[in-house]
């Protein structure tokens, strides 16, 4: 696994075809999913393996890096 900073995924919903491949490849524990049955958005992924981005047939998953100290703020919000 990577040693990168955690990331927050963003999904371009316009291109998402709800294929579920991102969830299928995701090594996170149960429940790391969005309300639209994709990988979770809006909360940090500390694995940051990016496999969901790789498997997406329409390349509509992107991410931004978050520093570890920012995660507490996000979770608090």
């Amino acid at each position, binding site marked *: 696994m990577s040693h990168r900073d955690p990331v927050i995924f963003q999904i371009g919903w316009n291109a998402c*075809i*709800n*294929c*579920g*491949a991102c*969830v*299928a*490849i995701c*090594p996170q*524990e*149960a*429940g790391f*999913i969005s309300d639209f*049955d994709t990988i979770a958005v809006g909360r940090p992924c500390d694995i940051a393996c990016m*496999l969901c981005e*790789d*498997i*997406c*047939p*329409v*390349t509509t998953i992107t991410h931004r890096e978050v520093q570890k100290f920012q995660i507490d703020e996000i979770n608090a919000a």
Partner: protein
Amino acid sequence: MPSTYDIVVIGSGPAGATTARVAAENGLRVLLVDKRQELGAPIQCSGAVSRHALEEVGVPITEEFIQEPIYGFGIYDHQGSASIIDYRQMKPDEYGTGDGKKPLGYVVDRRRFDRYLMTLAERAGVETWLKTEGLGYTPNGSDSCEIRLRRFNEDITVKAKVLVGADGLQSQVGKWAGLRTHIKITELASCLQFVVDRVETSGLLEIITGHEWAPGGYAWVFPKGHGYAEVGLGVICTMTDKNAQWHLDHFLQRSFFKERFADSRILEIQGGGVPLAAPLRTQYADHLILVGDAARHVNPITGGGIHTALSGGLIAGRFLAKFLTTGQPATAGNLKSYQDAWLEKLGDKMWQLYEEKTQIFRTNDLEERDRQLYRTMSSYFHPESEYKKI
């Protein structure tokens, strides 16, 4: 007091609905839940299934879900040379459209097919809840487990002796139990297909091999009924730096079929992850088993999962009915026999197919790999193939 069932099944696809139906037919009290409002959608599958697979599990073959009958296969190498396996010509007395003749299989409408399978379960006495999501489960001593559900925003806890995870490749149920469900990126094909108008088909499932068109997987052209076709492909993303969408455009515009596709119009867009992988090594835990895609009951060479889901559902439903009458606790140790039964009937052959597939993609020489894949696909679909019924 929570309602108590013999089994609760999460996910009403072919595997879940069949497990539920067979269990109810054999006297169990069954609850079948699905988070969706309409089954089958969003479609993540091309819908090809053999007639044998339907007959074997007692699913009546009806107009309600059939989109087009299938009579054989066309397997293409990367340049377009084909081996045509048309049962109408090979066994004309058995296969065809005339009296007493039958198709080899069908392309089904997954929305209607999945709904029909749930209907069969419901008619067999299964209680069915849509818009019901599974949230978690807790084994409760040796007797039963508690399953937390959310149905139309209401949190409900039910009890069951066994929870059946039939929640697909994205299975959360397997993760609840801590099973090793993770799939390797090299074994999950990224798939995209278009349902198109103005592409001719002739009752054959056409499979196009070759690294140039679908690195790590294959491309397909399937008849979809009403003059429509499905054109799609799956790729392994470690074998290409382009996505499935790029490869499908490339296939439509550059392949030896480009003239055939020249007037095509896209009517639907669908995608999915298709495992070209081995079955899960452990498909059971305390008070829990997995079936279908959740247990990775998918043919690792073709990526076909409907037949294996139906057959697996039959095995699971029968097993549970028999097991629960013995009064033994549904511990992981006792539920191992489910997996043993499944391995004996289907799984061992799937492991062999997996080895064969792995061997092909271990070949670094692309030309040799293309040759091997074409040869394997051609012999796989041949009437004499030992894997015919997987």
